């Protein structure tokens, strides 16, 4: 570690002592004499102080080493407290330990039998209440009798320790099996310990898993799971019923009967014939070393079937226990033991945790199991379906060899986001489709979407094993979307119309899914069989046609629902897009703050969905895919991921371009391209890349004019008007308009405009022309369809820009006229849509455009400010709203200063604006316009501070502005405007400095 640059502030010996300590910690052996000799002037102090430092470090280091060699710190103390015998049991040796306590092999003296004795950690057993409850639960658990549940022989308390005795199982945990398969597949004969080591390192997970070191080792168990000859005899004998009919339904109806039947079934399974095969078996793929893929490739069909069978047995046992009103609450691979017979055993039934999670959280006990907990369980409630969830995650892990939930700790922060289960086949495409469906259903986020009892889950697993169609249907991506949408608080505010529609679609989609395709297949088979029977043939054909129609109809609905959701997402906080369909009842504005990367992920999964659908159904979904991509860009832009947004837009643009080339009569694909160009212009303007925007504008315009008929249509003209408006008013839109001028200590009016030299005559003329063209198009459009809200909004916007331009041209009557017209339109819209914050935003923006010194200007600015506060109360984090408020404050500050001379008040307003803008700039470093606005305000502030005779402050403020601009310059290399700006600012700074001595 190097000594830092400000060492002069620190005591020289302290710096040396620091280095000395760090070297000791690194395992070096620095001597005190070495330091004394190197620093003769400090030698005396070093010799007197360093020995005690060395002593303290030695003690500290020793503690570290002890911890490393002994990961379970409490071991010594706990072990010390365990006597040789507890009650009737004589303890032989420790066989495993977990968060709950330590498991020993012991002998029950009275019966002279070997047992597993679990001694409960006093942390878990807790106070007397807890102990009493533990006793009750253990008694209940002891009453369970099931082939797949480790029987409890008895419970007791001795030496102030609680314990229970259970059957000693010669087996390994599924956790160990998974780890073995995952980490050490090829060579597991020799290195079973590898998996164990890894476990110990991942401390949170392993703490609960019971490790055993018995002759039947993990490698054996792993091979066992891979043996395809390990079959279950009796169930397969059941005649396969017709598809759709569920032979297991009798079990579902009468679970009591089912339980007995199933447990008998499981019993027959405990006599398989693999025992001799274990040693002789050679796995064909075993020798393939290397890539991750080969690891997956080795998971054969047989393995997946074995997993399904094993989990089915677990489900059966769980179902049995649930009927005894006993929940396990901690199902996970580490609590499932596989013995040498291939029988699966559930341990710790009902004992693993106490019912109330509060207590568990208090002790932090929650941790080890968090990965497998149902979300509602994390929230502190839940019923028997929590076991289904945990079993689903266990199944997931067995199939994919990786935990379903990657970051269990994050689940505490946000269970919703961090409980998303990936699709299994995306991890290993060899996993059977039906097993994926079963798994995903078992661990659905909402309990009502899961199997409602373990029996149902078992039945589906058995159906899979018998190659019969499972009952669970695959959750389509769209349904996932719908569920997500319902959970998403922002979407939840969708109008009931939209929600209702989504629900309808979700249920319709029940028809369109894999099962659907299966039934199509069945129909095809029937068709073949009925070849000779003409009547049947035509009927079969008819149903095929019907099914196809239904599927396509559903898809259409699905896409509509998708568009609705997308439009809503896209309009959250949307202010720039004039096409937001205000005026339609369904349109709701949503809180921009709730947009996140998750929305992007969701959409991307939807893209995949479209691709798959196209593949399977010969239906061309390229338009939908391109649209979805465009929306991804919208969201990315909203959440400030500007670079990614640009990429998405370009991709979408490319798709639309291809589509348009293929069928040029389609106007929508052309208009979509123009719309994307428009977004790209906005986006690049935000980033401060003004040059690029002109290129984009020219491309877009050329493109539109290639097709005269589209260009002359209403939509085409509107698209052009928007384009013109965007490009012509970049300055106004993005906070680059020259500020109104005011006299300061630097004299003449106009100084300010010079700082940001954007309003050169040529540029102004061009803007004026562009805007005039836009205005004339929009006026015509508005006349043609007076009820069209988007036309009005964009017209109002263009008028507002007219105000700005006219003012710069010193044509005040023209400015006032445009202002009046714009405000009139917007006030009208506000009156008819009182809840629309987008309209309020537009109005506030317009009102804040022309802030002069007249009373009416001040009134307008005040009104703008109060509108801003209104929409911000509702949507406090939407960046555009915050930016607008800041910009109004800036103008109000200038006006206040100018008209009343109240510099202090002006400073207050400006400081508030700077605060808002600084937040925005920090939050969205990619968006140049926020930084630019901040820099401008800082310049204005520094002017003001000069007026207020605070030259030091003024210099500080201008420094900040320079810093901001320069960091921006580094980001977007080569923007000429930025370079000019920073030069101007430096001039300004030297001006301030030159004034300083004169005004001390």
């Amino acid at each position, binding site marked *: *570690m*190097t*000594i*830092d640059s*400000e060492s002069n*502030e*620190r*005591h020289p*010996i*302290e*710096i040396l*002592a*620091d280095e000395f*300590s*760090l070297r000791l*910690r690194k395992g070096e052996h620095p001597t005190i004499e070495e330091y004394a000799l190197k620093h003769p002037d400090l030698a005396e102090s070093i010799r007197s*102080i360093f*020995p*005690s*430092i060395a*002593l*303290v*470090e*030695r*003690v*500290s280091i*020793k*503690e570290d*080493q*002890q*911890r490393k060699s002994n990961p379970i*710190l*409490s071991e*010594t*103390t*706990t072990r010390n*407290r365990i006597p040789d015998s507890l009650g009737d049991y004589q303890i032989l040796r420790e066989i495993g330990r977990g968060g709950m306590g330590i498991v020993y092999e012991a002998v029950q003296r009275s019966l002279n039998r070997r047992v597993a004795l679990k001694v409960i*950690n*006093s*942390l878990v057993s807790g*106070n*007397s209440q807890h102990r009493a409850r533990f006793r009750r639960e253990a008694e209940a658990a002891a009453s369970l009798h099931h082939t797949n549940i480790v029987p409890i022989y008895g419970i007791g308390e001795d030496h102030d320790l609680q314990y229970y005795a259970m059957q000693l199982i010669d087996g390994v945990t599924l956790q160990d099996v998974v780890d073995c398969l995952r980490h050490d597949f090829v060579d597991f004969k020799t290195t079973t310990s590898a998996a164990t080591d890894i476990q110990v390192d991942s401390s*949170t997970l392993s*703490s609960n898993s019971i490790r055993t070191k018995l002759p039947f080792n993990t490698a054996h168990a792993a091979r066992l799971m891979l043996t395809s000859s390990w079959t279950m005899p009796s169930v397969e004998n059941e005649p396969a019923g017709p598809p759709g009919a569920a032979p297991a339904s009798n079990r579902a109806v009468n679970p009591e009967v089912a339980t007995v039947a199933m447990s008998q079934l499981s019993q027959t399974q405990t006599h398989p014939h693999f025992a001799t095969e274990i040693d002789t078996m050679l796995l064909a793929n075993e020798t393939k070393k290397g890539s991750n893929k080969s690891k997956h490739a080795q998971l054969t069909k047989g393995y997946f079937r074995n997993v399904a069978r094993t989990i089915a047995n677990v489900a059966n046992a769980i179902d049995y226990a649930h009927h005894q009103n006993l929940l396990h609450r901690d199902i996970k691979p580490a609590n499932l033991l596989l013995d040498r017979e291939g029988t699966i055993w559930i341990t710790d039934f009902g004992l693993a945790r106490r019912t109330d999670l509060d207590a568990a*959280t*208090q*002790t*932090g006990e929650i*941790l080890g199991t968090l990965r497998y907990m149902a979300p509602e369980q994390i929230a502190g409630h839940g019923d028997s379906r929590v076991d289904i969830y945990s079993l689903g995650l266990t199944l997931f892990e067995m199939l994919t060899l990786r935990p379903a939930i990657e*970051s269990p*700790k*994050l689940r*505490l*922060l946000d269970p919703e*986001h961090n409980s998303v289960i990936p699709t299994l086949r995306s991890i290993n495409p060899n996993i059977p489709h039906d097993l994926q469906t079963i798994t995903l259903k078992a661990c659905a986020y909402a309990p009502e979407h899961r199997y409602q009892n373990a029996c149902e889950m078992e039945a589906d697993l058995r159906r899979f094993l018998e190659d019969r169609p499972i009952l669970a249907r695959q959750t389509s991506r769209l349904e996932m979307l719908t569920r997500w949408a319902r959970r998403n608080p922002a979407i939840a505010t969708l109008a009931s119309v939209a929600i209702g529609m989504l629900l309808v679609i979700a249920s319709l989609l029940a028809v369109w899914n894999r099962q659907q395709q299966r039934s199509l297949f069945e129909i095809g088979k029937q068709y073949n069989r009925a070849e000779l029977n003409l009547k049947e043939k035509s009927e079969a054909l008819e149903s095929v046609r019907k099914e196809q129609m239904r599927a396509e109809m559903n898809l259409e609905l699905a896409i509509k629902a998708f568009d609705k959701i997308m439009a809503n997402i896209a309009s959250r906080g949307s202010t720039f897009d004039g096409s937001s369909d205000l005026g339609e009842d369904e349109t709701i504005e949503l809180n921009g703050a709730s947009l*996140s*990367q998750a929305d992007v992920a969701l959409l991307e999964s939807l893209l995949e969905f479209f691709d798959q659908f196209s593949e399977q159904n010969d239906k061309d979904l390229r338009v939908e895919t391109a649209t979805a991509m465009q929306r991804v860009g919208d969201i990315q832009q909203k959440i*400030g991921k500007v670079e990614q947004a640009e990429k998405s837009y370009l991709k979408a643009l490319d798709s639309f371009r291809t589509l348009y080339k293929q069928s040029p009569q389609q106007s929508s694909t052309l208009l979509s391209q123009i719309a994307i160009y428009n977004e790209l212009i906005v986006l690049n303007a935000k980033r401060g890349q003004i040059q690029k925007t002109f290129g984009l504008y020219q491309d877009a315009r050329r493109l539109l004019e290639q097709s005269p008929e589209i260009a002359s249509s209403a939509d085409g003209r509107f698209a052009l008007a928007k384009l013109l408006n965007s490009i012509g008013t970049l300055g106004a839109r993005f906070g680059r308009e020259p500020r109104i001028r005011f006299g300061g200590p630097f004299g003449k009016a106009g100084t300010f405009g010079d700082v940001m030299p954007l309003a050169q005559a040529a540029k102004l003329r061009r803007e004026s022309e562009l805007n005039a063209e836009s205005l004339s198009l929009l006026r015509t459009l508005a006349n043609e369809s007076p009820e069209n809200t988007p036309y009005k909004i964009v017209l109002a916007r263009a008028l507002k820009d007219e105000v700005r331009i006219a003012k710069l041209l010193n044509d005040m009557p023209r400015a006032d006229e445009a202002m009046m017209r714009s405000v009139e339109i917007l006030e009208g819209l506000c009156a008819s849509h009182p809840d629309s914050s987008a309209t309020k935003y537009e109005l506030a923006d317009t009102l804040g455009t022309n802030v002069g010194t007249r009373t009416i200007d001040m009134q307008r600015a005040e009104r703008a400010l109060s509108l801003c506060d209104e929409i911000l109360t509702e949507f406090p984090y939407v960046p555009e709203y915050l930016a607008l408020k800041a910009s109004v404050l800036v103008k109000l500050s200038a006006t206040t200063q100018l008209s009343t001379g109240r510099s202090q008040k002006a400073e207050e307003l400006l400081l508030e604006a700077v605060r808002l803008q600084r937040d925005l700039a*920090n*939050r969205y470093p990619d968006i140049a316009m926020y930084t630019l606005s901040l820099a401008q305000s800082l310049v204005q502030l520094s002017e003001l501070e000069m007026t207020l005779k605070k030259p030091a402050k003024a210099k500080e403020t201008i420094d900040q502005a320079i810093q901001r601009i320069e960091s921006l310059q580094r980001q977007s290399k080569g923007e000429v405007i930025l370079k000019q700006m920073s030069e101007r600012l430096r001039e300004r700074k030297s001006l301030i400095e030159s004034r300083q001595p004169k005004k001390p």
Partner: protein
Amino acid sequence: MDAPTLCNNPEPNFPDERAQLLAGGADALADLLQQYQAPLERIVRFRLAPVLRSRIEPADVLQEAYFDISRRIQEYIDGVPVSFFVWIRQKTLQTLIDIQRKHLSEKRDANREVFTALPSHGQTSSLSIAKLLLDDITSPSQAAVRAEEIQELRSALESMNETDREVLAMRHFEHLNNQQVAEVLGLSPTAASNRYIRAAVKLGEILKSLSSRHGPP
């Protein structure tokens, strides 16, 4: 990247972590916590009351603390004037105290002497150090430190003034750097640096006088 506590940056960039949290939300928080996990765990391990060491896992304390931190993160963002690490250290220690209190009050009736063993806040460090030393005595195989040294250090620490003891504990057992100690104690880096030297000198004096008076036990 490695050991954030060791970075000797004299002017830690608080706004950076704040901006990171603001922009990144829960993800950023999780990242930061992950980054500081090892040093925090060390601190908890050290501060854990010896009597509860067999019952409380530091990882569990961290889990609780993270929960609390995630709930209060806005407080930090709104401008607690210390570095993020120092802030979460403080929150973690508070959580630890709460958990310990809960544990011991549960046991109060059954086990009075355990309750009385609950250290007051300030005592924790010397008790923790003493515990480390006692542990050492009980496991002779690892007796890398001679018993008299340990005894010496233990008595020395117990007779020290609390702030001095804290400074030494933070530097050598928690592995905080000078800047962080300064923040915790609300001192300037210079003052913290001087304080540390003073504490080390005192420790040396006490050790010296102890060994000359009593010799090895």
